[in-house]
């Protein structure tokens, strides 16, 4: 049985690798990266802030689908976790600063963020002169991400979660790498009267997106769950933070190096979800509400 499970896992990984390989299309630079290099340090903050928020929200999603952890005994689960952040109208616009040149208004202008459509055009001081803010580059109302994830336990009520994915450049999507993990520990043995399963978890991840964007995400929270036959209702409260670092050369005038850190605005989230357990296969889905709304879903194999 264990040999078959290992074979199954290997086949899944090969299938994913094949999909990734077949869809790869290497470009010198993606439009997103070119766009970044056209934004000075003043304008990149607002333009990219909604994207920074989605990175934080996505990375800090999908770590659990139950709070039931046995004290001792072998537990292994391989999961494909998909997560996504909902992009509202407010995330599609941002404030931009016009060129610091006489004749142009120096008042901030509402324009497209990275999730927006066309950049705002402002008229210049003479006929024939105008300036357009950068166009949006992600046309979506939902920013998705996915990763394989392995959960191993149980050792004194503790499980380790590891996730890793390396995605090559696919069309206009820069190559990206995610590596991270965490531990979850059952609190029921300390509070045996609790009517539900409760765990505490700590997670850390590192993410790179192309050559100029990298991020770290940290989350700490409590999870609870209650099972009813094959269904488990779960939820959690989580404190989280994520910082996205930008490091690139601004190719506008004057050419200059831009190195700055942007923090995601989401710090607290509440999660509620449902897990269906069919022996060796798990299906789960949840929604998290905080400064941004994120959803995650997973399909897991293991025992």
């Amino acid at each position, binding site marked *: 049985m264990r040999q078959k499970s290992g074979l*199954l896992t290997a*086949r*899944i990984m090969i*299938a*994913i690798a*094949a*999909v*990734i390989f077949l*869809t790869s299309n290497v*470009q*010198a630079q*993606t*439009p*997103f990266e*070119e766009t970044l290099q*056209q934004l000075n340090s003043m304008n990149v903050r607002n333009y990219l802030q909604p994207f920074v928020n989605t990175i934080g929200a996505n990375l800090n999603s999908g770590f659990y689908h139950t709070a039931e952890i046995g004290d001792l005994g072998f537990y292994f689960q391989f999961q*494909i976790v*998909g997560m*996504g952040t909902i992009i509202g109208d407010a995330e599609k616009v941002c404030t931009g600063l016009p*060129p610091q*040149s*006489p*004749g142009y208004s120096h008042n901030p202008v509402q324009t*497209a963020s990275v999730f927006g*459509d*066309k*950049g705002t055009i402002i008229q*210049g*001081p*003479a*006929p*024939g*002169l*105008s*300036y*357009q803010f*950068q*166009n*949006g*580059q*992600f*046309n*979506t109302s*939902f*920013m*998705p*991400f*996915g990763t394989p994830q392995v959960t191993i336990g149980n050792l004194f009520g503790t499980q380790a979660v590891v996730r890793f994915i390396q*995605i090559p450049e*696919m*069309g*206009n*999507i820069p190559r990206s790498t995610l590596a991270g993990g965490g531990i979850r520990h059952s609190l029921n043995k300390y509070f045996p009267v609790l009517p539900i399963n409760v765990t505490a978890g700590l997670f850390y991840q590192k993410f790179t997106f192309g050559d100029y964007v990298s991020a770290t995400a940290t989350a700490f929270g409590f999870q609870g769950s209650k099972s009813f036959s094959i269904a488990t209702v779960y939820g959690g409260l989580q404190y989280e933070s994520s910082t996205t670092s930008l490091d690139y050369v601004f*190719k*506008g*005038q004057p050419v200059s190096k831009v190195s700055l850190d942007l923090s995601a605005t989401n710090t607290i989230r509440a999660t509620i979800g449902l897990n269906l357990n069919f022996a*060796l*296969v798990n299906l789960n889905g949840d929604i998290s509400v905080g400064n941004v709304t994120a959803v995650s879903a997973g*399909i897991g*194999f293991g025992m």
Partner: protein
Amino acid sequence: MKRVSSLPQISACILLILMAGCEIGTNPVILDGSPVSVNLSVNQLTAFFGDSTSVSLSKVLAGLDNEVDSIRLFNITLVIDSTTGMAPDTKLSGLFMLRTNNSGSDTLITMNSTDIRSFATERSIFDPKLADSGFTYRSTAILTLHDLLRQTPQPTVFIAFGGVGSTAPLHFAAHLKLYTQVFTTIQN
């Protein structure tokens, strides 16, 4: 058992669907064009001066390997330097003229006793404060430049600068710079 054997394909499909759920690069990227410099140099023992040069507007695209949809002009600046050997408070009266192979001359800038110190550092020719210094630009010439930049390929323009200084000798270099935005075609 047959159901289990299809799980890798299902997993791969989920990953693909997730990655395909977001359209990227549907709007063209706007790039800063390479600034086009027009450099004119004057070294005259008399108070009269003049120089001309030609410059290809295709220099806007230097260093870019993108497919270009259009080019938009958003600023023109002027700096006057290398003034060693002439009176620092020299005032210039004269014209910057613009000409192409297929069009007549058009006055771009008029200077009327304009103090060269006004352009000791790079300054937009559209700065409203310059009007007090006897410095004006002509909108028709700006429109001509705007139209020329929209041509494919971008043509070569001739710029001439001539006039009279308030002192002699005259030693200076005038640098006009055109700042543009380049609109790329959508990459898919």
